[in-house]
């Protein structure tokens, strides 16, 4: 019984340490706010650092938009009235075009932003 109690304490301690670690990591993450409205993202360009974990917080001011970048593994939708979060850690430098891939009207085809990864 004592062993079980000790093990339980150890698990709790590990869990707490993990939670603290996650919390510190989350606190250290840079947060980037991106707003979508027909037919543009704001800002139009975001600079990221290779290996840096960034939390993207996405908002829509009007209709449902898409947010897609194949090489960075981003594929989500942004619903109005909600915050959509995406965590990204770019592994390589370059310019990455992010597109709206949820049809939103006649200017949809030109709705994009660029991630510049340094």
């Amino acid at each position, binding site marked *: 019984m004592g062993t079980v109690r000790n093990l339980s304490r150890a698990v709790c301690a590990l869990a707490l340490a993990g939670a603290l670690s996650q919390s510190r990591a989350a606190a250290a993450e840079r947060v980037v706010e991106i707003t979508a409205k027909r037919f543009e993202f704001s800002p139009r360009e975001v600079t990221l650092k290779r290996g840096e974990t960034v939390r993207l917080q996405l908002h829509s001011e009007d209709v*449902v938009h*898409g947010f*897609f*970048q*194949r090489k960075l593994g981003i*594929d989500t*939708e942004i619903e109005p009235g909600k915050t959509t979060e995406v965590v990204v850690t770019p592994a390589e430098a370059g310019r*990455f*075009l992010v*597109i709206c*891939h*949820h*049809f939103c*009207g*006649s200017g*949809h*085809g030109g709705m994009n932003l660029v991630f510049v990864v340094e």
Partner: protein
Amino acid sequence: MTKTNPLDRRSFLRLAGLSLGAGALYRVGGALAQTGEGKSVSRLLAAANGEAPAPFAFAQLSDTHVGFQGPPDPMGTAAFERAAAVLDGMAARPELILFTGDLTHDSEDQDERVRRMRRFKEIAGRIRVPVMKMIPGEHDAGIDGGALYREIFGETTYSFDHRGVHFVALDNVSRARPEVGPERIAWLKADLARFSPSTPLVVFTHRPLFDLKPEWEWFTSDGDKVMNVLAPFENVTVLYGHIHREDAHVEGRVRHYAARSLVFAFPEPAAAQKKPLPFDAKRPFANLGLRLVHAGGEKAPAARSIGIEDVELTMREHSGTEGFQQLLRPSPT
């Protein structure tokens, strides 16, 4: 007894494809009835599938965008109307025309959308052909899940048979995202279940079913799942539009062809920017001109050996009618 090479059976439908400003014209198995080997292939397919493919020609038109006004293309429906006149004026009109989406340009005004769809039907109706089939593009169906399109044109995913070829219209636009969706993929699987692997299939869709250039939305996210369903079939041709330019791509044993649009063209996928090619008032149909797409050709003699009518077409941007007539002439064997 003549031994038929399985490759020949697979490739009998290789298309002598002509991608035009006025669309693309295809001839199916043109010499099947003319050569001993072709007859053998035809008999095999008839035994396997119940109906032998018979030679016929069909045309593909794409991205007419009725209602679009420039820039970059101020010509409106001029190219579409010209294409309709060319096709209707042919000495031997194709039996079938496929429209691969973006029949109309979208509008916020629902009544205007209706007018554009009716205008499309009016122009398309000038072409006197027995069978005309279409699928939506995102500009027709993305904004309302295809509701208005269905009212005016009917279902967005369906199939039909024509002279031994099974045609499948596959909607990859009305879910708003570039995807077919699990329901339609399940439908496709069920639709194809009754066919033998040797059945020639033509799948027509709007967006490419492979990753042509995802950052330009030239892809279908679940296209690989569609390809898995098509994998058992030996002879699959996918026709699509969306990219406003011609393209030919082979993946495995599936051949993908894009037809040019009837409004402005986009640059090649290798270009840095997806910027429409500029309009040239002196050459209003430039980039919508004639171009021959060879399937088979010198590097695939087996395909030709079963009688593909490979038509040599000279690129002449304003000679649509002549180009079509050239294509209809029997090629030397």
